[in-house]
């Protein structure tokens, strides 16, 4: 092979499971795909703080409050790791964040749904973090080194997120009738949006093929979604609750659960910005950023003064 045949060398590395590192040659499209995916992922972590952050002030016990604060704070940390791995691809964090605020970059649509009751903290942990984990476990083996390593760190924390969510629901399911109803209602509202988290059907997803070839992804949307349904259909029994799908049924032939059709109109509507909370979420992020402007300016100005003083002392 010609040593200067970069594309061939690149694909060879991918095929032999060698991680691609920041300074390695990579096709432009690979870089672009990664920047898009990692930044979307980073934004999802940060925007994802909002629906759960919404209940920190009202958590029903001190223990739950502490756990929820720690959980939401973890997500901020995930955002940081991911913005950093995105930077290794040559985009600044500032530019990446600007793309979110301008509406150019997307984040997971799941966070455009409102958190109406305390039980939503449980449903999010169980279903939303649960769905995220399946995706992220796969991404621990993604071909881009910094992304894979960020995922390994993140996955360690995610299993705590799912457990605390399930534990909230489990406690509700053993509680009063009101608590049980609250639990079922949250599952009803979060189930379908969680299934949508895996993205469009394989037959409609135009990025999947190339991403699989580059080993950015290793499972298709539909494969991951099926894995998720199989997992939740069993776990929901422990809660003595049901998933809101009449067609959910064990299929002895496929050895998987069959499930009903996702409302794809709703899916695309929320993606396009018409979800119940798209505006609130983006506004909240923009507001935090804008109101933080003077703070960042001050920190910069102070650091500059300090650097000047130090130089003076050194001289």
């Amino acid at each position, binding site marked *: 092979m010609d040593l200067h045949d970069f594309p061939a060398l690149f694909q060879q590395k991918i095929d032999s499971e060698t991680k691609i590192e920041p300074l390695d040659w990579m096709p432009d499209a690979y870089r672009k795909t990664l920047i898009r995916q990692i930044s979307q992922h980073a934004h999802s972590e*940060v925007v994802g*703080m*909002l629906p759960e*952050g919404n209940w*920190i*002030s*009202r*958590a*029903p*016990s*001190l*223990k*739950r*409050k*502490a756990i929820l*604060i*720690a959980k*939401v*704070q973890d997500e*901020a*940390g995930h*955002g*940081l790791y991911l*913005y950093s791995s995105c930077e290794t691809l040559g985009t600044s964090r500032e530019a990446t964040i600007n793309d979110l605020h301008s509406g150019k970059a997307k984040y997971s649509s799941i966070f455009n749904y409102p958190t109406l009751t*305390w039980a939503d903290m449980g449903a999010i942990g169980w279903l939303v973090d649960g769905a995220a984990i399946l995706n992220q476990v796969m991404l621990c083996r993604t071909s881009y080194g910094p992304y894979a390593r960020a995922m390994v760190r993140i996955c360690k924390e995610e299993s705590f997120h799912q457990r605390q969510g399930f534990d*909230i629901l489990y*406690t*509700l399911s*053993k*509680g*009063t009738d*009101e*608590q049980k109803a609250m639990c079922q209602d949250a599952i009803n509202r979060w189930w379908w949006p969680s299934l949508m988290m895996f993205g469009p059907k394989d037959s409609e997803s135009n990025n999947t093929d190339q991403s699989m070839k580059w080993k950015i992804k290793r499972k298709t949307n539909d494969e991951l979604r099926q894995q998720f349904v199989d997992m939740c259909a069993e776990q929901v029994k422990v809660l003595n609750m049901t998933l809101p799908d009449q067609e959910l049924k064990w299929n002895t032939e496929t050895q998987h659960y069959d499930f009903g059709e996702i409302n794809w109109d709703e899916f695309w509507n929320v993606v396009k910005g018409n979800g119940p909370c798209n505006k609130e979420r983006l506004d*909240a992020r923009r*507001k*935090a*950023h804008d*109101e*933080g*402007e*003077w*703070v*960042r*300016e*001050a*920190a910069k*100005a*102070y650091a500059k*003064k300090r650097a000047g003083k130090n130089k003076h002392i050194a001289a």
Partner: protein
Amino acid sequence: MNKNSEINTNNKNTFLTDYCLHLADNSLILAQRNSAWCGHGPILEQDIAITNISLDILGQARNFYQYTAEILNSSKNNSSAAVTEVTEDSLAFLRDNREFKNCLLVEQENGDWGKTILRQFLFSNYQYLLYLQLQNSADEKLAAIATKAIKEVTYHLKWSSEWVIRLGDGTEESHQRITQSIHELWPFTEEIFINAKYENELTEDKIAVDVSVLKDAWYKKTAAIFAEATLTIPENVFAQKGGKHGAHTEKLGYILAEMQFMQRAYPGCIW
């Protein structure tokens, strides 16, 4: 036990539980305030930092509440009346405004980032000095809680000091903003160093810290940080007080309404 000494023990216990509640309420209310920044901070790293402080002081509050509950439950066992068990949650979520004993400073609004970090600095500066002494309390439980918390508070003080300096000596705007916050918060600093009855009653036995003696060191540190930040300490400010014995600003009612909502709306549930 003769009647008189029994009454004395009961009083002592009330002073002790009041003192514990005061310490717990301080931390809980400030944790509640700070945690509102989670997801809304000016920089992701600082969002994490303020949330961390929130978690630390919430942990302290829980330790003090749990100890209070322990004392209250054991003294109830001595009397025959069957009363529902006191827990950290019943103390946090089922007491009303007038029973909260936090100082007024911690219930003040977050305002902008400058006001929040200034409030943290003024409070951590006090809490650091307090815990330093409380580590030697004759009450072993209190001493243990303080010993555990002092490391955290050392960091809170360092972090908030750095922010005061950064904003004071940053840009003209940041200097102006934090100066404004100093004027808003300063009236609430005096109260911290006036011993409440429960503090007075417990200092002789070396259980509580005499807060009046902390004031000089607190002022010195504040003056030093302000000087570095090119900020000035206001003079002749009328002091607002009352929080430590349950006379609060109107703000606390709203904090409690939100914080206690679930326990009030769904009484007696396990969460």
